[in-house]
């Protein structure tokens, strides 16, 4: 079963999780990694560098066991109206790094009905009002880790979410440190309650394993063919093509009896499916192949621009005998280049 990794900056923020669930320390390169029967928990330390370093190390080793990452903890409010102790979820994470704005941003997966805001991760604590004022132009919330966590999640292709509780109005001095100590337990319990209710709803948005349609299960599918089949079926669905109609064009019974290799039979199915998805494309290539048939006989071979953007036609001829030369001459005499060009210019019946 796939697991979630909960990431907190400080132990105080994680205390309710450590208290209510059976997380046990995992022997790892550094302290702060825990696991219970279902999920993982990481205490990464303060700041986006610490967070990204530690998370990258954990995912490098355990990414096959971790399906998503949820950053939890406290954050500051940059805007009046977002009250202290309110639970919030972020939608986009930005980064301020040593006075400059980092262009790259990350959108998080939202999981709850909590109010959604943008969040800016900063390189230092926001103790002064002019600093807070500047940040407020970009986001409503501020923290120290989320952007770093998001960047690592993108690297490892793991969805990430951020649920925070507002601890203070940023830019109002250092009293926050006192408040964190006093209220850490309360805030952690609040976060735990949110996550607990989410777990009950099975909020993990896992990619469902692709199930091969029953009619096609009797054929052999390699991994890449299975992927292609998944793409083809999604494309068919987007085109709203009737599945029974699709099946009738595949002639599966006949195909099953053919004495070709299993992989080739699956290729034929894929080719037919793509033909249904891209009928115009198929028609053009068929018309071109038909027009070029006489140049593709014997020892002659043609190659046209597969993107169809140019009229270029490459001809390869192997001449080993006078009759090969005669064949080439005849083929060239009868080949109608203008007709070939007309197809490329869209003069085609569809």
């Amino acid at each position, binding site marked *: 079963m796939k697991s979630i990794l909960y990431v907190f900056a400080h132990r105080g923020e994680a205390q309710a999780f450590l208290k209510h669930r059976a997380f046990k320390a995992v022997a790892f390169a550094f302290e702060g990694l825990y696991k219970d029967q279902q999920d993982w928990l990481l205490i990464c330390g303060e700041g986006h560098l610490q967070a990204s370093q530690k998370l990258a190390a954990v995912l490098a080793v355990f990414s096959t066991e971790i399906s998503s990452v949820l950053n939890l903890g406290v954050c500051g409010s940059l805007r009046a109206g977002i009250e202290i102790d309110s639970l919030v979820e972020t939608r986009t994470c930005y980064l301020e790094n040593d006075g400059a*704005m980092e*262009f*790259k*941003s990350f959108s998080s997966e939202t999981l709850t009905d909590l109010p959604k805001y943008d969040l800016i991760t900063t390189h230092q604590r926001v103790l002064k009002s002019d600093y807070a004022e500047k940040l407020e132009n*970009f986001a409503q919330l501020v923290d120290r880790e989320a952007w770093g966590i998001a960047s690592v999640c993108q690297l490892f292709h793991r969805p990430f979410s951020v649920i925070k509780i507002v601890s203070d109005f940023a830019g109002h001095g250092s009293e926050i440190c006192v408040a964190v100590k006093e209220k850490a337990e309360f805030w952690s319990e609040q976060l735990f309650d949110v996550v607990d209710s989410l777990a009950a709803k099975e909020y993990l948005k896992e990619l469902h394993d692709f199930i091969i349609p029953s009619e096609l299960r009797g054929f052999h599918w390699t991994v890449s063919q299975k992927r292609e089949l998944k793409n083809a079926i999604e494309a068919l669905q987007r085109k709203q093509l009737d599945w029974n109609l699709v099946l009738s064009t595949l002639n599966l019974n006949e195909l099953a009896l053919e004495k070709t290799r299993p992989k080739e039979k699956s290729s034929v199915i894929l080719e037919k499916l793509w033909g249904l998805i891209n009928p*115009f*494309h198929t028609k053009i290539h068929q018309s071109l192949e038909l027009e070029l048939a006489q140049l593709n006989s014997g020892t002659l071979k043609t190659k046209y621009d597969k993107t169809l953007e140019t009229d270029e036609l490459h001809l390869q001829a192997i001449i080993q005998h006078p009759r090969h030369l005669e064949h080439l001459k005849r083929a060239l005499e009868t080949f109608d280049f203008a007709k070939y060009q007309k*197809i490329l210019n869209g*003069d*085609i019946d569809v």
Partner: protein
Amino acid sequence: MVTSMFNRVFVEEECFDSPQVHQLREKFSSIEFKKIDRIDHYFGRVKKPYLQKRDGLNLYIGQKRGELIKLAPPAYGLSGEPHFYYVHAYNCIYECEYCYLQGHFDSPDLVWFINHEEVIQAMSDKLQDFSQEKVWFHAGEFSDSLALSHLTKELPLYHNFFKHHPQALWELRTKSVNIKEILKLSPLPNMYISFSLSPQKESQEIDLLTPRTSHRLKAMQELVAKGFHIAVHLDPIIHSDDFVEKYQVLISQMKEHFPLEKVAYLSLGVVRFTKDVYHQVQKNYPESRMHAQEFIKGLDGKVRYPRPMRLWMLQKIKQLCLDQGMIEKQIYLCME
């Protein structure tokens, strides 16, 4: 409705006391107007997701710096004359699934420039370079030229310029039906209001938040009746099994609303994307039927229909226009 359009309004300090901003502050009294030094210190400095335009749209007001008018790409308008576009705004209130603005500014926030006098001066200078020729100036490259014109209020300034410069041709490109500000002006022989049109079903499914095609046709009808020149962009054309029939209906509807000879020009183009924009479309509209199209990715990274298909589609629609009585020289193909 208007008051909930923006989360906040950021105004460059030097524009804060301008009459335009004063007027807007009165109109949007419930929205916070915040002074900033320069728009480019904030807008586009971070990548803001495109779909945040739905519930987190900011407005920036300031001065357009740098190039005020730009040479239009090839096949932008009728051939034979130089084409330029001027930029009065960035971004759009509509949400067309194929829109290239998704990948252009890295932010969906609206930007309004208010130094129109400088833009007009740049146009005047440009006319000097082409003293013997007609020169086109288009509005609507980075934003709909009419959708918010009742708020931006710049049209009379430009109208006055074009009135006194018949050598200059003015095109206002739009998908809106907001023609109130146009109707306050007098028609000019060198002024063209061009509407992008698509069959109703396409428009509803893909041109999100835009006015219905039938309403756009009515707006065009009204403009024609008042003596304004109109033009049509059937662009982007999107393929479906019955796209020819749909366009046949659309062209008949056009004909019911105004004589087709009143269409100064009609452009035809099929849907196409740069690689980056297509990536954004996939991200923003994963369920769009656009992804069921027979696109190919060329060596140049462009995502579009294969050339035979593009030409075939364009020819089909062009023929429909000709069959309905339009003439060759009214129609041009917008190839890329």
